[in-house]
């Protein structure tokens, strides 16, 4: 009897501690999530306010109507976001297709063939990843000028394709897990190396390609530094990210319109995130392993 009572007591003690721990755990999670969300929520609230409402109410008071889409329309027109989405779509499509082809081909050759310089090429790419992009642009700018790439969409696209290391890592890692016996049996059947790459290995590489497309896609869509440096003719060459620059200067305090513009610009990222959460998480974990 006594032992039993004791056991119950011990269990109760444990569960009291357990409850405190659980409460702390959830409180901290809720607090951090609140901090993560509040800057965005305030933006959403403000985006639905009319000019008069924006001027007269506190930023955190709810808007009168959640169907006031006037700011979104105004922001879309003012920042010429139709053109911006068009340009971003072109850039995304070409950069993604290009860098997937280039990346998988490079990874195929580096993983499947031994040749002098293989290690050197890997090291060259690893070393390139160390160089901070912003610092490099000091000199890349001069090269872009010399190549007449400044203020051209294709120049920007080619440059964006040339600076991608993480997806190459993902591809190489993935190739390492595809058995070489696949290649060998195809060789016996008389397939050429290009056939092996394109018909046998590329389809198997699909998960890695999807991951690379998502990560690279998000990066390319969000890229703004090089875009504002090399696509200076904003009337013609604005991307979604740089189109937001419209709101600096005289429009800089009309935050209800600015917030609407900001939200439009991050909708594609939000949709991508909701649809492809898993790939994004695993892609980040995979890309970071090599650091």
């Amino acid at each position: 009897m006594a032992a039993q009572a004791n056991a119950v007591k011990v269990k109760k003690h444990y569960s009291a501690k357990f409850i405190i721990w659980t409460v702390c755990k959830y409180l901290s999670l809720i607090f951090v999530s609140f901090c993560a969300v509040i800057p965005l929520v305030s933006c959403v609230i403000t985006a639905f306010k009319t000019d008069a409402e924006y001027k007269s109410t506190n930023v955190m008071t709810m808007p009168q109507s959640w169907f006031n889409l006037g700011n979104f329309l105004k922001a879309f027109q003012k920042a010429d976001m139709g053109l911006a989405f068009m340009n971003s779509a072109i850039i995304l499509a070409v950069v993604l297709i290009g860098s997937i082809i280039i990346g998988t081909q490079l990874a195929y050759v580096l993983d499947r063939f031994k040749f002098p310089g293989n290690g050197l090429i890997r090291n060259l790419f690893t070393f390139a990843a160390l160089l901070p992009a912003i610092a490099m642009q000091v000199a890349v700018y001069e090269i872009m000028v010399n190549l007449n790439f400044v203020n051209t969409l294709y120049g920007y696209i080619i440059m964006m394709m040339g600076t991608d290391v993480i997806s190459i890592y993902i591809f190489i890692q993935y190739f390492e897990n595809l058995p070489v016996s696949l290649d060998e049996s195809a060789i016996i059947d008389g397939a050429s190396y290009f056939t092996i790459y394109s018909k046998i290995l590329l389809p198997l590489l699909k998960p890695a390609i999807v991951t690379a497309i998502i990560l690279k896609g998000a990066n390319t869509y969000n890229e703004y530094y090089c875009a504002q440096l090399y696509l200076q003719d904003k009337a013609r060459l604005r991307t979604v990210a740089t189109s937001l620059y419209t709101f600096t200067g005289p429009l800089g305090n009309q935050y209800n319109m600015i917030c609407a513009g900001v939200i439009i610009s991050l909708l594609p990222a939000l949709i991508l995130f909701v649809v492809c959460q898993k790939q994004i998480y695993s892609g980040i974990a995979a890309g970071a392993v090599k650091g």
Partner: protein
Amino acid sequence: MGTNTAAVAGKKTFGQWLKSRKGQQTVIIIAFIIIPLLLLFTFTYLPFAEMVKFSFYKMKYVGARKFVGLDNYRALFARKDIVSSLKLCLYYMVGALIQIALALYLATILSMKVKASGLFKGLIFFPYLINGIAIGFIFKFFYTRGFVFDTVLQWCGFQLDSLPYWLKDQSINNWSLVGSSVWRYCGQQMVLFIGAIMSVDDTLYEAADLDGANKFQQFKYIILPSIKTIVTLNIILSITGSLSAFEAPFVITDGANGTGTFFVVMNTIAHTNQKVGLASAMAVFLLCIIFICTILQKLFFKFAFRNMHADDESRSAKKKRVKAAAAQPAAAVKGGR
């Protein structure tokens, strides 16, 4: 693969060589490697070499260049704005350490049994996917006097009069920027740590649960050892990261009111003032620091890895022992977890 055929056949015409396996291999290697190498050369190594060269010249992007020797490097340490910008990296280093601790805490919690963990994870991670310019606007808005941050603090009982101007007051504005940077990258780092924690063998937790280890002990003896490498790597990377801090001050304050970090100052000197030589010297100087850090990191890991190896062995031995001990009740436990 296929080297034999080429060797046996001996001398061949070029056409025959092309048809052989060896020839095909060479062709495909060259065909697949030439474009990426060309891009890598044009946009990384050529500019790298140019930058080193530029750093010895007084020049603009177009027009005459004048060789000035080490003058640019001397100016680097003589100019007040550059020297003071270097000091700002301390803020970002502290921020990075806080971020790592926070990310580690969140990752630990979220990899345990938590309700709605997917939602929490998603909410905390999403800021990482927002473009830089949007971040700039969001935080200009967030920190404006009387706006979002001030309102939230007023809910907590602070008086508006006692609050500083978050982006103008020089005693606080760098912390404001660091905060926005933590906001943006904490979730990404958390996801990274969760990935590392998930790679730990599940049976270890079960065994620990059986042994009555509490959550803190589980963290200390199971989770931490298994992600030691990635945490250390992140701590080391935070040093170079804070030296090259750029985004937050660039998009939010544009470096005004003493928030210009090294790269923000460099960006202005290069693209606004067009003092390319000086900017190149700055870039080269920072690259040198980054190389030194990287080499130290490699050495550190070489050293740590030697000890880790012994550690690993004892851990796998322990794992086996734990597994054997837990073998009998394991079936029952699995259902409960």
